């Protein structure tokens, strides 16, 4: 089948028409993560504005829709990261050489062994879980968070993340390991998985 990009009305590069064409789909996508009218509307609006500012960089190889969704994901992540419910320890930075020391003794054993999670229901529909997860995601330092979101929101491979961020594979694996370590500890600390 031949691709006809120009004549497809759903592929218009006229920003005013985007609201009609893609507004609902973008909103629904944002809402599934943000669960809140105002925050979802913000995410959609910020997506359109960012797209207008970058319109000349739009490549016709992709569809307008997938381009907008790519931007929206970043806006959703930005909004999740503004959640300031929990406070990150002041000394936890991306390059913290002592990160693992918070979790392990000098002999390499767990300080607080992970407990069994009872009836773990990890879904977006489980508001309690997702609220905690949002708060915990906001705790990650910026580079660690960026790598984690590229992996888990965009589904990128290690190689793609390395290209995107200019990091080595070792850095990417370490960041992912630390993100997972801190997320599960944060969830458990706030009562997830306990009866």
């Amino acid at each position, binding site marked *: 089948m031949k691709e006809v990009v120009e004549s497809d009305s759903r592929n218009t590069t006229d920003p005013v028409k985007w609201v009609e064409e893609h507004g609902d789909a973008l909103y629904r996508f944002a809402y599934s993560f943000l669960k809140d009218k105002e925050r979802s509307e913000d995410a959609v609006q910020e997506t359109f504005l960012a797209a207008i500012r970058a319109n000349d960089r739009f490549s016709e190889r992709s569809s307008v829709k997938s381009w907008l969704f790519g931007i929206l994901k970043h806006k959703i992540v930005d909004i999740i990261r503004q959640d300031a419910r929990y406070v990150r320890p002041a000394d936890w930075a991306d390059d913290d050489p002592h990160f693992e020391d918070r979790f392990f003794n000098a002999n390499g054993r767990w300080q607080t062994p*992970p407990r069994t999670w009872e009836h773990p229901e990890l879904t977006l529909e489980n508001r309690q879980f997702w609220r905690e997860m949002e708060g915990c995601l906001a705790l990650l330092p910026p580079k660690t968070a960026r790598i984690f979101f590229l992996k888990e929101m965009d589904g990128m491979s290690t190689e793609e993340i390395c290209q995107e961020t200019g990091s080595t594979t070792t850095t990417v694996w370490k960041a992912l390991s630390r993100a997972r370590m801190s997320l599960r500890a944060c969830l458990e600390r706030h009562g997830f998985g306990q009866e």
Partner: protein
Amino acid sequence: MTDNRKERTSPMSCRDISALVSESLDRPLSLSERLVLRTHLLFCRACNEYSRQIRLIEDFFRRTRTETDSLKERDHEEPVLPEESRRRITRRIEDEIRDHGPESHP
């Protein structure tokens, strides 16, 4: 820079194992790494729980990617962008185009 993978064939602590468990989600482990990991997990309850939990988290995000991806195609389902939000966003877009949009470029 130190290669933190080189000593991983000797007996490992939970600290080392936790990193290996995580990496097993991101790259294929070598045969010896898999052996060390499996042996440790056989006897260590805490690392077992750790492995289970980060897999649950990984699985949650994978499912979420699939589910939310399918939302992009379902055009007429709830929730839809409320009418007043639609108007507000449209006005904001028109402002943006007037002030900074493509037309303002020479």
